[in-house]
């Protein structure tokens, strides 16, 4: 092999190693799930109102696990749906939350979590109707919950009333678009709570064992950030 060829080979090999290293650093260390920032432009600890919007889907068609149920968070500026479960809110603020429920029903393992706690008035509004408790064992009522244990928040997510066996009737392409309820059935859950005055990352989770295919239904999407659990970052 000639000297120029050997030098070229060395340069190519060097660049390849650098590229692999850069990919690993960027993808696995610096990359990650995006955090939707609802705190921009809001003065913390003034009880200012922040409107956070999420949706839960029977699947997601935007990841390598398309059959996993998943939450999405709406970007506050572009209004685009982002496949993440991390969002940031200002401390000491009133959080008005809207969650679109596109998924079907699954009974709670512990029906205790059918009650609404931690919201203002311990109430949620489903399609505008107030609820303090939803009994997931009395019918096809509850699909998921949105629970932040650190602030004792627990809100059951109502369903469009469809059952598992007719899941094709549900939204089939994620992120789903709220619009014509007859074409794509869904529920609208609305509730309010106050964010803590203490900065921190408050994890949230779903309490319905909706990780189908995993032991006790609590594996897979239930244990993976970006699907059915995440955290609310509180900043001031």
């Amino acid at each position, binding site marked *: 092999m000639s000297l120029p060829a050997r030098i070229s080979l060395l340069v190519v090999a060097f660049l390849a190693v650098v590229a692999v290293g850069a990919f690993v650093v960027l993808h696995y260390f610096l990359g990650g799930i995006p955090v939707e920032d609802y705190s921009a432009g809001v003065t913390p600890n003034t009880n200012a109102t922040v409107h956070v919007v999420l949706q839960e889907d029977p699947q997601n068609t935007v990841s390598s696990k398309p059959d996993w149920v998943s939450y999405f968070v709406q970007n506050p500026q572009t209004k685009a749906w982002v496949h993440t479960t991390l969002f940031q809110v200002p401390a000491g603020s009133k959080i008005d939350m809207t969650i679109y429920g596109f998924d079907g029903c699954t009974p709670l393992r512990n029906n205790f979590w059918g009650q609404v706690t931690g919201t203002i008035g311990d109430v949620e509004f489903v399609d505008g109707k107030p609820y303090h408790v939803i009994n997931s064992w009395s019918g096809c009522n509850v699909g998921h919950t949105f629970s932040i244990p650190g602030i004792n928040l627990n809100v059951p997510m109502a369903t469009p009333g469809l059952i598992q066996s007719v899941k094709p009737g549900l939204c089939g392409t994620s992120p789903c678009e709220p619009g014509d309820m007859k074409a794509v059935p869904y529920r609208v859950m609305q509730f309010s709570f106050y964010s803590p005055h203490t900065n921190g990352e408050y994890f949230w989770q779903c309490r319905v064992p909706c990780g189908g*295919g995993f032991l*006790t239904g609590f594996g897979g999407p239930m244990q993976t950030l970006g699907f059915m659990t995440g955290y609310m970052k509180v900043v001031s």
Partner: protein
Amino acid sequence: MAAESSAPSQQAGESSGPNHGLRIFIPWLILAVVADVLIWVVWGPHLPPGAMSSSASNQQFDIKIMAVMAAPVMLFVLVYFAYALIVWRHREGDDEDGPALHGNTRVQATWITLSSIIVLALFVFGTVELVTTNGAGAGEGASPIWKPSGSTLQVQVIGQQWRFTYRYPQFGGFETTDLVLPVGQWVEFHVTSIDVIHSFWAYQLGVKADANPGVDNVAYTKINNTGSITVRCAELCGLWHGAMFDYGRAVSLGAFVAWARGTEVHLASVTAQLPPYSLTYDPTTIAQMSKAMVAAGFTGGNGLYYPPTDPAQP
């Protein structure tokens, strides 16, 4: 030849030399007494897990006993070590070999006898401490051998990813995320899980009991004074295991009864949706739940959450 000639002089030297045993024993005795007094009086009251409950104070007492017994043993090793370094160190110009070592029956017999006494005494002490303290705050399984006499307040601890909830069967079976307990009353914990393995650890109470699905694990304690109780899961149970903690509180008996009765009324609508109080909760045998799952189209059958192709319940 050299060894033969040196042996008499060594024996003569030993008989006329210092009494090493006494020179080790006296400082060891002083240090041991001082250390034990300090452990018992100064350090002991601060040893974990405190004295908030009968089980906690008994555990603290046991740790004090262990420390008081261990300190002299450790000090003997350290004093002997220091003495050897100082007295039997190599000196300038001394190139002579040390004396040959032989077995010493008196030392060996003393060592074995003392060790046996300490170990057997701790065995008897530990057994008595389990019996007389009603299980010492540990989970005793579904059929506890050691239990307190008289009435107890039953509190069921339900582990689930990633929160403990508590049911009070003597107050209508309401369930809550608040752990509130009375002072001066024996508490009978029934610890179970409805998903994976957890462990209920009420630190200040000295209570620690595994929470296994399908298992009723019983533990007892009696609270001495009011205060806050830190509850943690002590069994790696998934993504948010580290966040599975909460804070309970111990209050006077009157305050507890008022709280329990008020909560029973406040949560009546939620309690009506819960399954009847049971020592364990198997999703496959809770009638309302099975019915809901069949209605929801789950094809696992017999109340299983997912079809047979999915992993079954543990």
